[in-house]
């Protein structure tokens, strides 16, 4: 009896093992097929240029919004007021985009490193320079923790707030031209440090919009009566 049964039960065991292996292979194959066909989404790290740009540019944009809302209360000039409205609304919207990236990437809004650290790191090689400003190189001599380019100081903001009329417009335009130049520099810097599609798209928009606004603000500044 024993001798007659053992080859049979041995075969059964082998069959079961084979079935288990087959199922395991199947699961692995289906998993591989699923993950291969799903879009690859690798989020930037918390010390990446993308994350650094998303955080520092939010800070930079926030000051442009602040200065724009200040000058709207200090002048009746429709051109300057509309320009300020444009800057305040568009840079708020862009800051919201960058805030959203960090959320989607599961990264904190606050950097583990000092501001501007990402700009002190070398550029990537082989990155497209498409969308950069005409004179921009993306290079920078900024130090981690240093001031962001074009940011107004507390004294300059106080000076703006104390002025009215033409004088307020002049200070605002001078500060905002410098601020935009700094913004373009930061956008150029991320364009040579990132291949991330959404980051490149917004950075190129910032370069384009702020470069043309610099020209417009220079015209408005030139049209002001001499101080």
């Amino acid at each position, binding site marked *: 009896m024993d001798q007659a049964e053992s080859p049979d039960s041995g075969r059964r065991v082998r*069959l079961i093992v*084979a079935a288990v292996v*087959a*199922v395991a*292979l*199947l699961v692995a*194959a*289906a998993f591989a*097929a*699923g993950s291969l*066909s*799903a*879009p690859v989404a690798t989020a930037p790290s918390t010390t990446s240029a993308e994350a650094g740009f998303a955080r520092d540019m939010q800070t930079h944009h926030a000051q442009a919004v602040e200065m724009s809302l200040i000058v709207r209360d200090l002048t009746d000039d429709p*051109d300057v007021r*509309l*320009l300020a*409205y*444009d800057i305040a*609304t*568009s840079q708020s*919207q*862009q800051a919201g*985009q960058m805030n959203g990236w960090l959320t989607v990437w599961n990264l904190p809004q606050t950097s583990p490193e000092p501001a501007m650290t990402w700009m002190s790191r070398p550029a990537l090689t082989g990155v497209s320079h498409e969308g950069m400003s005409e004179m921009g190189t993306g290079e920078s001599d900024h130090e981690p923790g240093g001031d962001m380019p074009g940011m107004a100081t507390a004294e300059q903001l106080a000076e703006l707030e104390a002025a009215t009329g033409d004088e307020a417009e002049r200070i605002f335009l001078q500060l905002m031209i410098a601020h935009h130049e700094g913004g373009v520099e930061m956008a150029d810097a991320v364009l040579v440090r990132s291949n991330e599609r959404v980051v490149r*798209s*917004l950075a190129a*928009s910032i370069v*384009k*919009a702020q470069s*043309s606004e610099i*020209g*417009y603000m220079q*015209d408005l500044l030139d049209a002001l009566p001499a101080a």
Partner: protein
Amino acid sequence: MASNNPATPSVKEQREAKRAAKVAVLKKQQAKEKRNRIIGFSVGGLLVAGAIALVITFVVSSAVPKVNPDDIAIEGLDTFDGLTAVHIDPNPVDYEAEYGMNPPAGGDHFGAWLNCGVYTEPQQNENAVHALEHGAVWVTYDPDVLGEAEIETLRESIPKTYMVLSPYPGLPAPVVASAWANQVQLDGVDDPRLADFIEKFRQSPDAPEPGAACTGAVNGPGRIS
């Protein structure tokens, strides 16, 4: 006699040996058949299970349709490269002469943009083009071609923000949809390309200033919403 020669098997023994050989061959055959059957079932089962897995994978991975605006193809789309975007007020722009556009789909413009909305009267091109720079889609219609019911259909069919709708006498088509650097001439208010165009270009990151406002500047004449 048989015991004389043990090497020579008896007839009975010979028969038994033959039968044993036959049985061995038969058993071997049966074992082979069984193995083949197992292999067949296993391979077949794997194929069926694989097909099911692929179907499940496909269904799961395509359950939420992905619409990449880049993939929306619009037949008859006109595009304009290398547009300038200078504020030229108070001098008007001849968009047809400067850029070969009628109606305009980008280019130099006034410093103030047209507030998005539905208008019953023609609008200043230079303001409307600035709205395109901010990511709006401008739908124009020929008021001499479209009836009141068709105009109402247009008004109902477009999104409420980042859209300008206005009459434009002398259009090359009954309806023309324009975004910055892109335009399509439409056969009428029910042309399916209108919805595709709006989906592809409204608030597109390809506009020069996406995210800029389409409010707070100039209300043109005849704004009703």
